[in-house]
């Protein structure tokens, strides 16, 4: 079933919409969620939330790119679940991307600047606009898609070390940008 038909089903509040959504994007969503949650039970719970959110939102919101929307909702729902349950369920296996992003905060993580989420997102958008295209692509594959470094290296024809170095440089630049904007102190 293509996206147009799927969106029509969702907008029509058809009972078959969720199963069609699951048939079309279930495996894709599962991959995204599992990368973050790494637990079948949590993934299933996450997917239920995702389908519910998409079902609810499509009634009122005009969605142009369903694949992006589904990926985005899944990614953000899984990250929210991870953050919410981090202390009690994921303490033993922190995501590697967390550790990497921790670099942006150095030793001053406990000195928190309270900043509106919209401001942070705006800052990130402005920051990404300044990056060379490939550097931005690698950064986003790592921290949006949460792809493995080996996979990213393979996809862009670089060595893993080169990708690690590129990411490290980008994180340093991001740290400077966040400090400049007063988002971290």
């Amino acid at each position, binding site marked *: 079933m293509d996206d147009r038909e799927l969106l029509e089903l969702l907008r029509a509040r058809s009972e078959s919409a969720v199963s069609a959504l699951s048939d079309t994007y279930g495996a894709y969503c599962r991959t995204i969620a599992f990368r973050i949650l790494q637990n079948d039970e949590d993934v299933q719970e996450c997917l239920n939330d995702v389908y519910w959110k998409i079902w609810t939102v499509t009634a009122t919101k005009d969605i142009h*790119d369903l*694949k992006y929307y589904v990926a985005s909702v899944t990614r953000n729902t899984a990250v929210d679940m991870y953050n919410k349950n981090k202390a009690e369920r994921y303490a033993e296996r922190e995501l590697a991307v967390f550790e990497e992003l921790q670099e942006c*905060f150095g030793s001053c993580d406990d000195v928190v600047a309270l900043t509106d989420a919209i401001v942070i997102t705006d800052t990130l958008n402005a920051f990404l606009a300044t990056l060379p295209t490939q550097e931005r692509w690698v950064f986003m594959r790592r921290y949006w898609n949460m792809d493995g470094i080996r996979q990213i290296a393979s996809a862009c024809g670089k060595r893993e070390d080169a990708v690690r170095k590129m990411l490290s440089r980008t994180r340093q630049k991001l740290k400077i940008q966040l400090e400049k904007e007063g988002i971290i102190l």
Partner: protein
Amino acid sequence: MNSAQLLRAIGDIDPVYVDVTPIEELIRKKKPIAWIKWCSVAACLALMAGCGWRIVFPKDNTPVLDDSPRYYASHSFGFDSPYTYCTLAEASELIVVADVESLAEENVPLYMSNIVSVKVREVLKGDVHNGDVLLVEDLTSSEYMHDPDIPMMQYGNRVLLFLVKETIVEYTLSDETKTVYGFTQTYPHLGRFFLDEDGKYHEADTYSENFPYPHSWRVFADYMPRALDEIKDLIGIE
């Protein structure tokens, strides 16, 4: 703010920066490169067969040995079947002697490259054509060649294959040059830079449909002239 919040904030970034194509698909799209590499190997084998034919049935039945230097070349495709180049008359000798160490003992210069055809064995001078193989000594550095890949670069709209002497020489290239050089090695057949009559590099309007990252090339458009100058300086090209 902490890393968890930052990770979450990244999720709300402008969709124009997001590529939702599953990474596995992007990796699969690179398959044609492997396919082309194998084709190169097949072409090399065909050339070897041609050499073999000429050896078995020489034109005048008399081997013509000359004083040209002999070269040993091994491909970098991960299987153990080195092939050799030399003057055609000497091919039999080198094809039989495919062992690197024994060649080294005989002071035969060692070269490492994957060679589709040998047409030019001169340092880049004068008119060169697409697919020409150029003998460039000492271009290699340990950094490049410990993981040998296709020593190839775009020069204008021509793809040049460098027959690179395998010596360890430390050169200091800028990161940009390394990036361009590395990238053109990886996607030599997909390169879309060309040199116009004014001597400026441009991108072509179209890309191969096999090429998943046309945007990546745009990044290199600015680097290319500088990187090429640096490489040309390095190998002493006017």
